């Protein structure tokens, strides 16, 4: 079973991102960039499938600027066998990403595509579902558990009411939620080894996919602020204020 994992380079989860003064976007200069945490989880799951003898090969793919090579090296250090960089600068929307991933999936003969459920920069939560649609295959989003046996993926999903388990024949697309696993840290020897693993550099145009955005960002602004910071000294004062000042109880 060949597994493809899509990984995205994003501003690190611990960075408090600031809106640019001119309202054209957010400030990403000198901001620490990392692999999207949900992509890390997806990759970890793929590497575990390989370690369990269920996956024969784990391919990591990233669509983004030349710098996304760093993200792919991290993926290789975590255990991916090889990597593909699809270079595309500027804003690449989930639909275009899904089209590129479809091309790679078909070219490589992939049986299982693992992605994160959302990227923590644009918070779109679309790519996996779109990829499954374009491939004409089943989808299991927000997965907290994945079992593969006899060509069928059995997936437990985190849904609003609790958990739902579904079964999908492979090939299929699965997107990871937070509790699927705890991703490993790449060890220093593995980081060294990753440098010599194969990494193919391609361009979006090589796949014949139109990546021109359908949406125009007109403005980016700060959210409405809230003025908090008031303190109370006791439970009695809190209850009194909730009743007479805030009038919410």
């Amino acid at each position, binding site marked *: 079973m060949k597994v493809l994992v899509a990984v995205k380079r994003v501003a690190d989860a611990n960075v408090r991102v600031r*809106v640019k003064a001119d309202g054209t976007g957010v400030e990403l200069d000198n901001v620490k960039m990392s692999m999207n945490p949900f992509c890390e989880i997806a990759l970890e799951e793929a590497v575990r499938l390989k370690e369990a003898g269920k996956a024969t090969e784990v391919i990591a793919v990233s669509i983004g600027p030349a710098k996304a090579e760093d993200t792919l090296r991290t993926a290789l250090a975590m255990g991916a066998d090889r990597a593909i960089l699809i270079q595309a600068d500027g804003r690449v929307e989930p639909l275009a990403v899904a089209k590129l991933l479809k091309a790679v999936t078909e070219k490589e003969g992939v049986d299982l595509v693992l992605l994160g459920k959302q990227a923590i920069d644009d918070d779109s939560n679309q790519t996996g579902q779109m990829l499954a649609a374009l491939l004409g295959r089943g989808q299991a989003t927000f997965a907290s558990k994945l079992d593969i046996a006899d060509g069928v993926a059995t997936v437990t999903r985190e849904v609003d009411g609790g958990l739902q388990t579904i079964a999908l024949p492979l090939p299929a697309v699965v997107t990871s939620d937070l509790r699927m696993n705890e991703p490993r840290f790449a060890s220093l020897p593995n980081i060294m080894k990753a440098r010599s693993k194969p990494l193919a550099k391609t361009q979006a145009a090589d796949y014949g996919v139109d990546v021109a955005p359908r949406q125009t960002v007109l403005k980016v602004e700060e959210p409405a602020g809230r003025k*908090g910071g008031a303190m109370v000294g006791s439970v009695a004062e809190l209850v009194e204020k909730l009743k007479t000042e805030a009038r919410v109880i």
Partner: protein
Amino acid sequence: MTTLLIAEHDNEVLNAQTAHALTAARALGQPVHILVAGAGCAAVADAAARLEGVERVLLADDASLAAQLAEPVSALIVGLAERYDAVVAAATTTGKNLLPRVAALLDVMQVSDIVTVVSPSTFKRPVYAGNAIETVETSDTIRVLTVRTTAFDAAGAGEAAPIDTVPAAADPGLSRHVSDEVARSERPELAAARIVVSGGRALGSKEKFDALMLPLADKLGAAIGASRAAVDAGYAPNDWQVGQTGKVVAPDLYIACGISGAIQHLAGMKDAKVIVAINSDPNAPIFALADYGLVGDIFTLVPELTEAL
């Protein structure tokens, strides 16, 4: 043209979030039809028909739609789509699972999680865990939108709209429902509750989470939320997680107990009307947002609060 709103439901009850999403759908300025896709869900269609400003309800009642799996429901919507130029759903896990599949089948880019309808093709949406609000204009002729329901008031009741039955599409058979693990509770639903009490890592165990948070929730008639750390540690179930990657809530009152206030958590609750934080660390970031901060040990203060209410 017309807007198609996808109803959120469990085959028995129309979820309250549909009425909020309807307000966003109506803001597009054209007639709205509601699609109820499920099995044995006629009562849901009746409820949807009584929402204000709904022109028509489409009822697709078929065994293949019972679990509302994305593949058969998206096939159904795509079959109907030529009559519509906007497809809208609440940004619930069902809506988020379904709508991007519909969008891709229509070769359209979805606009996720809209919080404002600026014009029929321009929307505001939060990005970066709500640290920035983007205004995006779409050039797609069919708009596919998911709605952050806390940003829109619920539509009221109206005159009953007609209900048309529509057939399900051929089941693509790409996935199969196996089982659900859904906890039934008498408490209000987290996404719709007027009061939410939320517990964090500081609770220390499931036993202590239950011992502190449940009586407080009972006293206030509140829903219970949790931080990711509390869910990861098994103190609370996954569907209680509030935040960027969990549920977004905007109750009248949110009481955060032993939660530090990481950006990812704040993303899910900072639009609450009144925020109370109880935390032993006076420098916890949650206090910067709280209307009423109380410094101290939750293990004494929370039971004291429950007692005082």
